[in-house]
Each structure stands twice: as C-alpha cells, then as structure tokens.
C-alpha cells in the first residue's frame, strides 16, 4: 500500500488496483468548517483530473477531482450526514471515494515531495 498526493491537495492511497481518495489536512484547514459533501454515484467512470465530488465549507464550494482514471467502486456513505469528519480526520475517516484504477497512477507526489510543495505555498 502506498500513499500519494496532488498539487490540488488530495491524497490517494493505492492498495492493489483500488485507490482511496480524500483531501489533505492542509486542504481542510484552508477550507474551514466543512458543511456539505456531494459524492459520485458508484459505477461512475472518471477521467484523471475530472470533477468527481464537491466539498463545501461555510464560505466556499470546491470541486474534488479524480486524481486517477478509473471506476468509482465505493463512496464514504457516512460523509454526507457527517461532513465535519473531513475536518476532524481528513486523511482517515474523512475519505471520499474508492476508484478501481484503469492503469498505473501518474504524476503524483510522495509525502516528502508534497511537504516540499506545501513549504512553497
């Protein structure tokens, strides 16, 4: 199992051919109090970089992009009724969706590279 990151502040945990996706601690901090999450339908086919979910804080709405291409095989059904989980445990219980990968994910950062990227912001 390996965890990767994007410049859009999403994390991707790859286990075999399934990637679990969420937003990073930095992203939830920037968003502030999350009050609404909209998840994709299971079975939806997504291209890398396509809009896949929506996360809204008190002040702002943001798109969550699919960082990898594939098919949505599971969503975090607890999240729409408890969107604050994105704030309290963004890189754990606050996960958004699982995508069955079409191929090997590309263009992602490891933790050290993401931390270095954060340091430039």
């Amino acid at each position, binding site marked *: 199992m390996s965890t990767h990151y994007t410049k*859009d502040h999403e994390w991707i945990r790859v286990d075999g051919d399934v990637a679990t996706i969420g937003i990073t601690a930095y992203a939830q901090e920037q968003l*502030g*109090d999350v009050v*609404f999450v909209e998840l994709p339908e299971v079975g939806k086919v997504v291209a890398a970089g396509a809009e896949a979910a929506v*996360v809204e*804080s*008190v*002040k702002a709405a943001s798109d*969550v992009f699919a960082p990898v291409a594939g098919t949505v095989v599971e969503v975090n059904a607890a999240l729409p009724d408890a969107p604050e989980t994105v704030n309290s445990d963004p890189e754990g219980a606050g996960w958004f969706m699982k995508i069955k990968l079409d191929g090997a994910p590309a263009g992602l950062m490891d933790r050290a590279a993401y931390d270095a990227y954060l340091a430039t912001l």
Partner: protein
Amino acid sequence: MTNPSVNTDVAEPSASDAPLHSTPLVDAHRALGARMVPFAGYLMPVQYADGILAEHVWTRTHAGLFDVSHMGQAIVAGPDHATTAAALERLVPGDIAGLAPGRIRYTQLLTPEGGIVDDLMVTRPADPSEDGRLFLVVNASRKEGDFALIAEGLPAGITLTPMPEKALLALQGPEAAAVIRRLAPTADDFAFMAGGPTTVAGFDCHVSRSGYTGEDGFEISVAAVDAVALWQALLADPAVKPIGLGARDSLRLEAGLCLYGHDIDETTSPVEAALVWSIGKRRREEGGFPGDARIRRELADGPSRKRVGLKPEGRAPAREGTEIHVGGRQVGLVTSGGFGPTVGGPVAMGYVETTFAAPGTEVSLIVRGKPLPARVVTLPFVPARYKR
C-alpha cells in the same frame, strides 16, 4: 481540490493593486491567530483560530467582538437639526427630521434612478450642545464615493467631516449587555437604535445599541489610538471572543440583513429590497429624495421583483449567483447564500419576480446544473433579539 480561498463571498479582491489599508487592530488580529484577507481595500480577519462555525455559535450564545473599523464614520454639521436633517433628506428616503435626540435610523443613499448607492446608519446626538450634527456610519467599500456624493449634495453652511481617526468595534450577542455593564454601567440603558457618548473601560466612546447580527448588542466608536486597549479590555471578559468577517456574514444572512454589493446595489431600489420599513411615512407622501418617482410608483403599484428569503431542502448550500427557477423558467437570482450554523442547514436570499415572492412558494435553485427544491420563506431565518 480547487483552491477554496478564491471562492469566498467575503474575500473580495481589491479593485486595484493599491496597497491594502489596515485598521488599528491589525496586529491584535494577527496575535489572535486570525486569517487575514483583503476586504473592501482593507486587510481584515475572516476568522480566528476557532473557525467560522464556532465564532457564529459563540456570538448567538455569548458575546462576539468584531473590528468594523474599516467602515466609514463621518459627521454632517449644520446650524440646527431641522436644517441639517432637511439637507440630508435630499439624499436619503429615511425620516431624518423626525429623528429624536439620541436615536439612530437606518437609511440608504440613492441614485437619481432610486438605486441604492449605499446603506447607512444616521445618529442624532442626544446632547443639545451638538444640535445640528448627525453621525453617519457607511460601508467600507463605498465610503469614498459616499462622502463625495454627500459633500456635493449638501448646501452651503452644512459640512461633511469624515473621521478616519476613529475606530469602530461591535459587541454582539445575548451576553453583550452584561459585558458592557461591567465596563460602562450606563450603556445598558440605551434601547435598540439609541446611543450616546459613554465612557467604556475609561475611554471616551460613542456607544450605540445596534449591530448587524440580529442579536442584542452595541457598536462602539472610539479614538483609533485607544482602539487596541479597548479591544483588550472587552476581550478580557470570559464571555467575549473575537469574531471575523466570515461569521459576521453568516450571522447577518440568518438575520435577513442585506450585504451591500450582494443583496443591494445601484440597480436595486429600497422597495425591491424589502426595505420599505426604513422609508418614513412623510417621505413616502412628499418624496423629495433621489429616485422618488420610481420609489413612489413601486410603493403604489408594487415592484416587479422583490428580495425574499429562500430555504433550500436538504444540505446543499445555494451560493450567490444561483438561478431561481419556477416551471422551468428563471424567475430570479440568489444574492447571498450559504450555511446557517444556527439554522443548521443552508439559507439564502435573493430576488424573484413579485408573483413568486409569497412565503411558501416552491422554487428550484439550479446548483451545479441540477434543480434543488427550495421554498420562499419569511425573513429573518433566526428571530431577532434586539432590546426594544
């Protein structure tokens, strides 16, 4: 994830690259862990460490302290109240002549077409020695234009003097009165929309029982040089926490109050904006203010569109700019919308064709291309708790 910091209602970029102004409290905000954003040309706290939700709830349950020093304060001065009031009434539809000493009125500066240039508070001082003076508080984003418009519209012998040397604090919430009593025993005697000179924590201030949250509370005008010390004295009370612009926005939205540049602007009239209550009876009959023909026509025949409250079903917020549809046709636009922490769900306001303005009317809000069911509701979303 898209960058959320570019898509907030309160974080409006300045119109130019001009350097941002700051209030006397900028260092105090930073010391409290504030996230600072550009707003109306000022660097202002959008939130402190606790975050917008917690700040909103604190204000509704205890007392929130806001720095609103970016707003414009000014004095209009003439020989006596009747003369000064008559001069200001040429620019606003409010009944200023009928304002009793020590009382405050909410009104609007208008374009010649009856659109809203700005909304403002006008106070007639209580002290007879100040007869002929009026104290104005206008929006930060509009103050330069407002002051030019007022100065230009005043006759000889009546002057406008902006007061950039003053700061302005707002203390709002159910515990605001108890807090102010500890620092200024007489301030709690003011009724809602009344005020006067008051010593607060040893500083000379002008205290008003007013605010923009729907809660009981006070606005405190103080010399900029005393602002930090007064801020600290108020914050020393355990009932008081600092509150940023983010919660100020959700509080005023739940209270059904307009935000200039969003819910009202130069295209909207006070009648369309459901601000008829702020137009004096004598003024409606006599006119004599900019745009009076349009406004009196709208009062007689009804406006073509009206500002209403909107309650979306479910949890998805409908933001500013969301189209309002009925029967597959657009009938209006959301002008403010978001999550109401006290309501515990999404709340919005906007303009609809008058036919669809009745409370209970079912509408669709087009959010991300999909119709979201919503109802027209009576404002405010949270009952006001002003001290009458």
